[in-house]
């Protein structure tokens, strides 16, 4: 095609598009740090990492294309909540992999790769200090690495890695928080190429942290990040497992370092994902799985047929309770203090 149309979103301020994003999302502190804008920016000017989203020198370098506004899940923000629609719900534990609880995120990815449903998957790995980095999984064997599986309670630049993967493979899977899943759906609606993301695995999520703030907080508790073996949130308690024992404290203590973007989020169960996975609603060592799309159903059936996992019933009530709780504690628009 030699002539084509481009669609520009409507501006709310007489500024370049990043200026609009700054006024509507970043300054009001409702940015969820999903990194969709950093992924889509054609001049790679938007920076994410372990700091709030920024575009140094945007006045000069922004090309005013509006892509960041088109993909931002918090632009014209209408919070999603509840359990959402799903095809089936179960509790399961992988027989092949070790992960956070039942390692069902890992199991879904491995089966999707084996079945040829996706060519590669974007996961988040960690280093000794629990700093996050994205990795591209092309072989289920890679998932045996315990630094790749399991939850990291820190932001990671997942969507920029997803974009790179989408440019050179035809079927991609990734794991993300509910805000990333919502951002991906917006990307798919705006730019057709993102339909190559065939499997979006959503995580049950109440909040996420900046690595620097979390490690500073744990340092005050006398925990060095490099000694940590596993982190977990269970029943309102943040649990840090070390080689020489466990430290637990109420999640409420973390209130001061919860990013403001998370405090307006009401989506606990990643309602827009293909499959949502989390620990709530299952016994210890099992993961609750909400299968929402046909493609995820196909993978779940394959797991069942091959006997890769042990299945049990999950408690819908427990998930519902957490979903309602998140809506209650994260009102939008946020309550004015004082």
């Amino acid at each position: 095609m030699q002539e084509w149309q481009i669609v520009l979103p409507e501006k709310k301020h007489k500024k370049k598009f990043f200026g609009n994003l700054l006024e509507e999302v970043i300054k009001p502190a409702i940015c969820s740090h999903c990194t969709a804008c950093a992924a889509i920016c054609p001049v790679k000017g938007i920076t994410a990492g372990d700091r709030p989203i920024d575009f140094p020198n945007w006045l000069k370098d922004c090309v005013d294309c509006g892509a960041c506004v088109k993909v931002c899940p918090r632009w014209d923000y209408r919070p999603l909540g509840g359990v959402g629609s799903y095809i089936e719900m179960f509790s399961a534990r992988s027989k092949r992999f070790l992960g956070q609880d039942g390692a069902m995120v890992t199991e879904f990815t491995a089966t999707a790769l084996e079945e040829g449903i996706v060519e590669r998957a974007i996961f988040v790995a960690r280093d000794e200090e629990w700093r996050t980095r994205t990795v591209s999984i092309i072989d289920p064997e890679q998932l045996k690495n315990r630094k790749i599986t399991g939850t990291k309670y820190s932001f990671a630049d997942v969507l920029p890695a997803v974009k790179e993967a989408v440019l050179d493979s035809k079927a991609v899977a990734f794991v993300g928080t509910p805000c990333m899943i919502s951002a991906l759906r917006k990307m798919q609606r705006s730019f057709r190429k993102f339909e190559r993301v065939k499997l979006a695995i959503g995580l049950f999520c109440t909040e996420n942290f900046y690595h620097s703030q979390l490690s500073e907080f744990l340092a005050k508790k006398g925990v060095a990040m490099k000694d940590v073996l596993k982190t977990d949130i269970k029943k309102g308690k943040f649990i840090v497992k070390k080689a020489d024992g466990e430290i637990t404290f109420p999640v409420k203590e973390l209130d001061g370092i919860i990013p403001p973007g998370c405090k307006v989020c009401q989506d606990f169960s990643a309602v827009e994902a293909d499959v949502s996975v989390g620990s709530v609603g299952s016994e210890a060592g099992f993961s609750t799985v909400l299968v929402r799309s046909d493609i995820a159903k196909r993978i779940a059936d394959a797991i069942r047929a091959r006997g890769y996992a042990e299945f049990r019933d999950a408690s819908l009530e427990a998930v519902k309770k957490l979903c309602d709780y998140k809506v209650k504690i994260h009102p939008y628009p946020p309550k004015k203090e004082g």
Partner: protein
Amino acid sequence: MKVEFKARRLDLLRMHLDVIREAFKQAVAPDRVTVEYPRERKKYPANFRGIIVFDKDKCISCFRCAHICPANAIQMTFYEKAWPGIDYTKCIFCHFCVDSCPTGALRSTKIHDIAFATMGEMKLNAVQMLKAPELTREDSFTVEYVVDPQGWRLEKKAEIDELALEQFIIPEKRRVSVCVDPESCLGCRLCVELCPNDAISVDRKANKLNILPEKCTGCGICVRNCPMKVLELKEVK
């Protein structure tokens, strides 16, 4: 003791005679295989990789030579368009640039023996590359190695080899940039900014992007730089 000495003298005499005989033989019918450069010059094949000359009328400023150069020896400089210059302190004579040039604007000569006085002189710009460097020809013979069942020898002809190569004829394959996935276009207009021939235009009122096929040279700069890889080079008849 005396007998031994006599035998040795006989050996020495025989060796001297051998040497004298070889000297006579080489004077009358030499069979050496070394080239007497610069009096003689080897005949080089047509695909010889030597000093590169540049044809500015064929260049479409696609930067392909600069991108492919493994030694990073090519610097594009803006004249009428962006033209390549070669730094011969870095060039490894792989001729990837010559092979990658889609229009044949870069081509090789059989010249390899240039002396530069300083390092600075070895950095040639596009204008200096328009003509092959001048040589003072001291050779009057062309020699060639011949390999046949009897062995190999040097064949010498009293003629001078032409060092400029004939222009390779590159089959005319006109390609133009085409948007294959308009629904994934970000609308960033980087292609409009980058096009060296202003072949891509944007209508800011109607929000339309347009590639003019008659202006597009098929250089592929937009294709390489599109952040969503929605552009492709397509052959046209």
